[in-house]
């Protein structure tokens, strides 16, 4: 499904790269450990994390991720936005928990990676 549809369903706030919201997402991975994220080989992947720092965006860049949903009301910084814009990675802030947004996305049809 398209990122736009997904963002509207969960009620997230798009922080940057709105022009990339027509991208397709097939599966999601929820983790605060970037070491684990880097082992995921799936394409069209969305990351759900509570780790709001530059390395979360770097990890998304290296893993060709479509978007990151930052949970638990974590705020995205300016340097994260700059790096995301360079690589067209959609950053989304979400006030609820990782469990809640994972449940919402699962009910919408987003698949787990394994």
């Amino acid at each position, binding site marked *: 499904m398209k990122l736009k549809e997904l963002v509207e369903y969960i009620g997230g706030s798009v922080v940057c790269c709105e022009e990339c919201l027509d991208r397709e997402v097939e599966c999601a991975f929820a983790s605060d450990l970037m*070491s684990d994220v*880097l082992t995921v080989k799936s394409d069209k992947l969305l990351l759900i994390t509570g780790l709001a720092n*530059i*390395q979360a965006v*770097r990890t998304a*860049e290296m893993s060709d991720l479509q978007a990151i949903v930052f949970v638990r009301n974590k705020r995205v910084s300016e340097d994260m936005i700059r790096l995301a814009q360079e690589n067209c990675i959609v950053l989304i802030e979400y006030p609820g928990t990782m469990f809640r947004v994972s449940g919402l996305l699962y009910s919408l049809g987003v698949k787990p990676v394994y």
Partner: protein
Amino acid sequence: MHFEFKVQGGDFVRAGNASSQVKKILKQLNVDSSVIKRIVVALYEGEVNIAAHAFNGVIYVDIDTERIIIKLDDNGPGIPDINLAMQPGYSTASPIVREMGFGAGMGLPNIKDNSDDFKITSEVGKGTCLEILVNLKVNQEGV
């Protein structure tokens, strides 16, 4: 083509810059995106390892039409037991490194997993050297 990148220990703001540069170069060379992903994930893990564990290091990258060879050479504490360090889940990362989202003990195994050839040598008190080879052609994976 030959490139060199310096990496400073403890600098998690810049950690990943070299990997990002290499990714841009490989894209310009029209390397298959699945191969680029394997290369930059392995390189990024190695770059973060230098930032996390070493005082400093240099990344040497050599690219020809068939393959990329990456050497990550650091000055640092070294690894006393390489077999143990290669076990998934084993980590000596500091709390600061873990706060950055790393230190799950998946780095070295993941580098090996994404490489077509991988070598690691280390000397306690001097440093660690990783050598990563990845074939650039999709049908050469795993050869």
